[in-house]
Structure formats: structure tokens, C-alpha cells
């Protein structure tokens, strides 16, 4: 089958696909040898250093969207589009103080569900688990589908085969090595992505002139350079709030805060934010050069690979292929590990076994869970639903409604159980109303705002003060539900 961009011969495409898959499985096996017990498998022994800690956050947050949607944003919304995508790094920056606080308050914590259960009790915990699982599943399935679609567009590999190879590669090494394998491979994937994107940008920069790029854009599409571009400015706020909600609530980020060595949480997330920040700008610049390089007409969703292939030929296509593979794999592996932790620790250990389950059994269940979630995601990806991105946006107001219960729960003793429950319920409801009545761009904003008002009003009216020391009483195994209702 010929590939859509015609830069990669089929033999090279297939070789790269199976070559990359083999390399990551072997490396995952190599890194995963250290996983000897439950804490090792789920949290890499809670001893991850700065290099691996910052890299795993960067790799997870660089998805296929970052490398492909950022150029699309630039070509459709210009400089504001590049800046709008950059705001996603603010979530990483703002999670830095939260990571520090999480490490200080919960030295034995394992999931974000642990925090909500201990801080706000079982009702808030169950609502939170529903929101968090819905988000994790949609993100995982959207990444699996993106993998299949991109392998088809970039290399001519049939959707089902490309999607299956990427998904099963991640399932294999996550299953073998747990968090050790995820974090070890994330470090290498981060370096590959950063070097790949930089090399492409340098070659594109050498092939054209920034003055010519500016002149072409100002002549062909002057709107892209406008300071007042309403649609793009709205995208800034939506991206910012959606990103905050995604990071603050998701166990993907909490599990890393627990895994990073105590005292390094703030530094690791601050560096991750700084190192992630330039990627949408560099990728956006590659797209903006399209006009000056005479690349017309084009599809906005593959403008980045198209420019890279035009300037660097086969080398550029190979580079982009590797970058895209790594960016998808680094997100899928993290989602598999963190979602399985949440399901095993909170759903199985907490809701079903009520805390009466051994670490050994939890460890076995964690592996089964990775397999089941991975197979479930694979089945969900098979039908190739075209508009899954809109389902992910649908999760925006839901995750937005968790931002304030998380922030206030960590820092404000007066934050209450009722405020958290109603904040999530009203925030999600009003946010979904805005999604259908106003548009996707307003949904996260409304969900987050309503939740904020609810949480703050409830806390202000309350005279109760939570004792943060209660968060430190979490044993290695899940506590019974009856001990959770403390707020």
C-alpha cells in the first residue's frame, strides 16, 4: 500500500513500525527488572530522580496532539494558535506546588483516589472515580486511534495493524515492568521527541528565511498575525482550563508525584513545564513555513509531516514517524499504568475488597488490569470512530469541575465534603449544558467556574477545619470505606 505522503517506501514503513515496537519492548523489559514488589511495580519504588521524573512528565504530556495539532493550530490560528497550545504547559507549572504538597501530606499515598477518599469521604470519592475513569478511557482510546490513523497517513500502514502494533507494544512493556518500564522508556522517548522536533525545525529554518515566512503569511493569510483574533484568544482560555483539569485530577500525574523522590516533586514538574513549553512553538513554526516553501494545497492535520518531508525528504519523514510513534507510546504507557493503578487500588481494593486484600494479590491484579484495560481500549479502537476528539472535549467540563476540590482540598482546611461533591456535580452539569448550548470552547470555563463558586461558598460558610495529618494515616493497603468520611 502506498503511503499518503509518499516520502516513505512501504518496506521502510513496516521495518520502522516493527523495529520501534521491538526496541521499546526490549527496553521496557530491561528497565522493568527492578519491579520486585507492589510499590516498585506501581510507583517505581517512590525513588525516581530529577532526570527521569521531569522526563516522564514531559513525555506523557507530549501526545500526538502536541506534535500534529500544534502545527494545525498555528496554520489555522496563527501566532495566537502557537501561544494557545503553549498554555497547556501552565498545568505542569501549577502542578509543581501541588506535587510538593502531595509528597509532604501523603508519603504513603498511591492514587489521586486515595486523596479524595481520605479528604472528602466515599460519596465524593465515587463521583471522582467516575469522572476520572471516563476521562482516562477516552484519552486512552483517542491515543490508540490516533496511533492507527497516523501510521496510515504517514506510512501507508493499514489502520488496524498500526493501531494494534502501537497499543500491544505499550501493553507488553507496561505489563512486564510497570512504572519502572514506563518511566525508563519515557526518558528516552522525551530525548527522541525533543531532538527530532529540533532537527526538523533547524532544517526548515535553513531552507527558508524568517523574513520570507513572515511576508508570505502576512500576504497570504494576514489574520494569522492579528493581535486581536477572537477565536484564537478563546482557544487560549479553553486550552488552559482543560489542561489544568486534566493534570490536577488525573492519576497519571498524581502517580508520578508519588513515584518521584520526596523533595523533588516541585523541581521535576517545574522543569517539565519549562521543557514542554517550546514544543508547540517549534512545531507551529514548521507549519507556518508552508506558504514560503510553496507547499500548497495541504491538509491542516498533517501540515507538520508534509513540511518536514518536503524539506528533508525521506530523512524528515523517518524523523517525524519516530517522533509521532514515541509521542503516542509515551502517553499510552502512562495511561495504562496509572489507570490500572486507579482501578486496582480504588475500585477493586477499595470498593470490592473494602481494603482486605494483600499487596501480593493487588500486584497480580494490577497486571491483569493492564491487560484488560489494554484489550478493552484495543476493542474500542477497532471501529475507528471519527469524532472521538469531540468526546475528549466532552470530558473537559467534567475534569474542570475537579480542579477546585483538588486545590482547596490540598491547601485549605475549611474546604468541605459537601462543597467538593456539589462542586463536581454542579460544575459537570452546568459545563455539559454549556457544551451543548454554547459550544466546546465555553464548556471547561463554565464547569470550572461553577465548581469554584460552589467549593468556595461551601468552605466559607463552614466552621469545620480538616486536620491534614489524617492524610498521612494511609497504610500500604486500602483503608476500609468507613474510615474515609472525615471531612
Amino acid at each position, binding site marked *: 500500500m502506498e503511503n499518503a505522503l509518499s516520502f516513505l517506501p512501504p518496506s521502510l514503513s513496516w521495518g520502522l513500525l516493527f523495529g520501534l515496537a521491538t526496541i521499546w519492548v526490549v527496553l521496557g523489559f530491561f528497565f522493568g527488572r527492578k519491579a520486585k514488589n507492589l510499590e516498585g511495580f506501581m510507583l517505581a519504588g517512590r525513588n525516581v530522580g*530529577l532526570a527521569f521524573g*521531569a522526563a516522564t512528565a514531559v513525555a506523557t504530556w507530549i501526545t500526538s496532539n502536541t506534535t500534529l495539532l500544534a502545527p494545525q493550530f498555528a496554520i489555522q490560528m496563527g*501566532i495566537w494558535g502557537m501561544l494557545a497550545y503553549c498554555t497547556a504547559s501552565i498545568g505542569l507549572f501549577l502542578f509543581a506546588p501541588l506535587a510538593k504538597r502531595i509528597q509532604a501530606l501523603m508519603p504513603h499515598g498511591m492514587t489521586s483516589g486515595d486523596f479524595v477518599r481520605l479528604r472528602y469521604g466515599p460519596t465524593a470519592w465515587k463521583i471522582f472515580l467516575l469522572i476520572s475513569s471516563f476521562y482516562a478511557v477516552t484519552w486512552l482510546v483517542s491515543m490508540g486511534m490516533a496511533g492507527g490513523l497516523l501510521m496510515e497517513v504517514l506510512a501507508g500502514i493499514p489502520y488496524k495493524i498500526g493501531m494494534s502494533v502501537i497499543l500491544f507494544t505499550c501493553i507488553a512493556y507496561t505489563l512486564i515492568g510497570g512504572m519502572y518500564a514506563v518511566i525508563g522508556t519515557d526518558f528516552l522517548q522525551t530525548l527522541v521527541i*525533543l531532538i527530532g522536533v529540533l532537527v526538523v525545525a533547524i532544517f526548515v529554518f535553513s531552507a527558508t528565511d524568517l*523574513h520570507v*515566512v513572515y511576508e508570505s503569511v502576512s500576504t497570504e493569510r494576514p489574520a494569522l*498575525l492579528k493581535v486581536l483574533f477572537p477565536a484564537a484568544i478563546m482557544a487560549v482560555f479553553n486550552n488552559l482550563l482543560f489542561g489544568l483539569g486534566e493534570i490536577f485530577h488525573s492519576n497519571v500525574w498524581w502517580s508520578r508525584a508519588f513515584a518521584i523522590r520526596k523533595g523533588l516533586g516541585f523541581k521535576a514538574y517545574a522543569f517539565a513545564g*519549562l521543557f514542554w513549553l517550546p514544543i508547540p512553538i*517549534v512545531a507551529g513554526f514548521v507549519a507556518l513555513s508552508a506558504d514560503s516553501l510553496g507547499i500548497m494545497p495541504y491538509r491542516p492535520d498533517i501540515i507538520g509531516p508534509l513540511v518536514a518531508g518536503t524539506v528533508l525528504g525521506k530523512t524528515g519523514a523517518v524523523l517525524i514517524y519516530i517522533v509521532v510513534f514515541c509521542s503516542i507510546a509515551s502517553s499510552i504507557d502512562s495511561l495504562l499504568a496509572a489507570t490500572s493503578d486507579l482501578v486496582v487500588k480504588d475500585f477493586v481494593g477499595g470498593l470490592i475488597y473494602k481494603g482486605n486484600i494483600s499487596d501480593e494479590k493487588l500486584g497480580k491484579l494490577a497486571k491483569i488490569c493492564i491487560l484488560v484495560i489494554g484489550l478493552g481500549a484495543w476493542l474500542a479502537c477497532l471501529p475507528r470512530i471519527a469524532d472521538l476528539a469531540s468526546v475528549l472535549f466532552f470530558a473537559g467540563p467534567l475534569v474542570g469541575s475537579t480542579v477546585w476540590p483538588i486545590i482547596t482540598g490540598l491547601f485549605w482546611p475549611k474546604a468541605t465534603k459537601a462543597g467538593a461533591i456539589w462542586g463536581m456535580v454542579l460544575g459537570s452539569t452546568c459545563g455539559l449544558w454549556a457544551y451543548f448550548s454554547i459550544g466546546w470552547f465555553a464548556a471547561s470555563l463554565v464547569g470550572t467556574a461553577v465548581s469554584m463558586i460552589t467549593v468556595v461558598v461551601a468552605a466559607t460558610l463552614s466552621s469545620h477545619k480538616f486536620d491534614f495529618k489524617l492524610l498521612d494515616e494511609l497504610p500500604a493497603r486500602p483503608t476500609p470505606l468507613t474510615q474515609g468520611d472525615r471531612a
Partner: protein
Amino acid sequence: MMFSEAFLRYLVFGGMGLTALAIVLFIVFFLRDLKEETLW
């Protein structure tokens, strides 16, 4: 009002410079953690 060419230049150079710095610092952090046996 339009973004100026100089702004675009700063943005692109800044982005590429920061990406290069990120690569260098990741390698430095890795070597330091490796030397001090604090990788994980």
C-alpha cells in the same frame, strides 16, 4: 494591529533555544543522577 516580524523571530529563536537547552539539561541531569546513583 499585527504581531511584528521581530516578535515572530524572538518566538521562534526562543522556542528552538529552549528546546536545545531542554535536551542539554536532560542529559546533564541524567549524568548527574547516574554518577550519584540517584536515577531511581
